[in-house]
């Protein structure tokens, strides 16, 4: 790809501008679905954008004795990490920046926000924030292993570490959601935990420790961190859609190039919204777990399911692929 088209790809269309707009749209949809399920009307379309701009305009309060520079830099670091992760997920066809191992890079970039939350909790010198930060990291240890296992098994079967190749492999075989159902479920639950949504929103438990690591965030820092969470929701669901639901590809190829792009984008749009619907209904249908209960649930059920899935994949690889 020549550099200008690449720049357009990164900055404009399936890149950052689209990602920001899509993140706001995702937050709107998430709150709207949750509200409708709770018999409420729910926010208007531009509400997330209005919230974002208002938060930018608010006064920024620095707690006495806080490291201002680090506190300003941390949300930006998390936002940057999550937005770069979006470039490796195929949206319109295969992503031009794909390389062997971009799945690992995306997974690494997606864990950065949780670590930044812990950092924020620690930096803001507030007992609620510190406890929230500690809980965020404890929760990360619980769901991270099963989440990685669930997302790496498609790579095992497709035989390549690049998301684009996995999507291409699925074009000629069944989707991984059909081939590896356990992995699909574990991935969805892991994604819900990574985004710290209701069954797993223990760090930000509004009713126990005020707002957890978010307590001392004000003004633009809060805006950036809230945006990071929305963007990571988009990237997470796009990743799960790509790995398990076949990404923006359909089995038979369409001749004119631009038509296949549009169909690809349409598929990407529908699949990510499907994942969002599942996430939103999980959020609405459950209450919050305690951190020690999450520990039991996480290790007993999630981890064993993920390991079982890996075993099945290895067996299938041995018999089916080699035969």
């Amino acid at each position: 790809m020549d550099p200008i088209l690449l720049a357009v790809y990164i900055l404009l269309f399936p890149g950052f501008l689209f990602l920001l707009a899509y993140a706001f749209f995702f937050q709107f949809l998430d709150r709207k679905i949750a509200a409708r399920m709770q018999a409420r009307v729910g926010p208007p379309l531009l509400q997330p954008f209005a919230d974002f701009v208002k938060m930018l305009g608010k006064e920024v309060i620095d707690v006495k004795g806080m490291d201002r520079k680090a506190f300003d830099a941390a949300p930006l670091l998390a936002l940057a990490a999550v937005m770069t992760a979006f470039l490796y997920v195929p949206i319109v066809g295969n992503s031009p920046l794909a390389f062997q191992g971009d799945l690992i890079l995306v997974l690494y970039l997606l864990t950065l926000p949780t670590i930044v939350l812990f950092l924020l909790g620690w930096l803001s010198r507030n007992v609620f924030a510190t406890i929230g930060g500690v809980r965020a990291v404890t929760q990360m240890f619980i769901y991270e292993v099963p989440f990685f296992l669930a997302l790496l098994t498609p790579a095992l079967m497709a035989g390549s570490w690049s998301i684009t190749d996995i999507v291409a492999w699925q074009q000629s075989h069944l989707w991984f959601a059909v081939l590896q159902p356990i992995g699909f479920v574990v991935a969805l639950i892991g994604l819900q935990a990574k985004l710290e949504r209701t069954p797993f929103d223990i760090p930000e438990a509004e009713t126990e420790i005020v707002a957890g690591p978010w307590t001392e965030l004000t003004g633009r820092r809060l805006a950036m961190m809230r945006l990071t969470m929305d963007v990571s929701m988009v990237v997470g669901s796009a990743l799960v859609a790509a790995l398990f639901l076949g990404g923006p590809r359909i089995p038979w190829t369409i001749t004119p190039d631009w038509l296949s792009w549009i169909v690809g984008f349409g598929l990407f749009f529908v699949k990510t919204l499907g994942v969002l619907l599942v996430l939103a209904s999980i959020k609405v249908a459950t209450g919050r777990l305690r951190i020690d209960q999450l520990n039991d649930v996480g290790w007993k059920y999630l981890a064993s399911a993920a390991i079982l899935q890996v075993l099945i994949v290895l067996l299938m690889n041995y018999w089916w692929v080699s035969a």
Partner: protein
Amino acid sequence: MTEVVVPIGPHHPALKEPVNFKVVADGETIVRLELDVSYNHRGIEKAAEQRDFVRVVPLLERVCGICSHSHTTVFVKGIEEAMKVQIPPRAQYIRTIVAELERIHSHLLWFGVAAHEIGFNTLFMWTWRDREAVQDMLEEMTGNRVNYGINEVGGVRRDLTPEQIQAALKRLPHLEDRIAKYRDMVNKEATMMIRFRGVGKLSKDDILKLGAVGPTARASGVDYDIRKDDPYIAYADVPWQVITDTHGDVYGRTLVRIGELQQSLQIVRYCLENLPAGPIKITTPRAAPRGEILSRYEAPRGELVHFIRTNNTDKVERLDIRTPTLANWTSVAVSLVHQNLADIPVIVAAIDPCLSCTSRITIVNERGKKTGEMTWDELSAHGREFYRKRGRA
């Protein structure tokens, strides 16, 4: 993990009430807890001594916004008893209807807030939407959604018209099947079961020893219910029974409250259907003869007691209010030690504290880990002896 002192409240999203916990937590488990609730003290008892019977009722209406009818009924019932005056049966039935409707809306409110404590916001929204139906009934009958102002010495201030009765009867079936739905949701929904079962457990003799009242006590098998023990207004001739449970934990208290919701709906239906005719109030003498009345009432949160001393003037010589939440604080403080930090809101919500009724402080200290200088208190003395016995038993 070193000891961390976590101040929760008085401004805290979970507890809609100004209560403050200074919790010394070791990691996630609570080692020591200081509970300070005296943010709501306004000096109502002093003011009550300077207001005559007509002007004291609006003041007592606002001791607590959720159980406002309880405070006025128990006071007015006491004064009528002091004056040895019998109010007409229709007024008694109207008081019972409003009392039970208040219990329904209070329990629905509690159920929503308890679900909100564990992050289950959907149930919070649903229960509060159903509560709006009860609010409409109350608004039609008494003119105001909260603080109804329907009581006065000698009877009731507003009569129920047949249309209001029909409108109320039409709403009851919808509420009944919603509450039946909530009952089996409590038994089936996974996260609620995990977060409610076995949390804040108190055995029957714990409850009796610590003097807990209301649904908190009935959830551990103690069947004290003033409507049955010392029947007042129209409870003697309305068919209903006391709901008790044996679990003793937050789950048990939820079941008791849902059971009481269903009983209250039955009482309201019975009272609406055979509301006796006749006047709704009688003229009473201005002054109450000298006397001492202990007026008891079963408020939604438990046994509410007004101790009234009258000295044949038109004012009260002394009014001593003991609210149900005050009795429950001792038991909740003891049951909180050893629990998880995350469980504080759920356990405290389980006694459904009405802070504007009470304003007291309790300090509980579990001798297990010594944390700095020991704070003196009768509960710590009790807590130590209680836990040493439990440790040995």
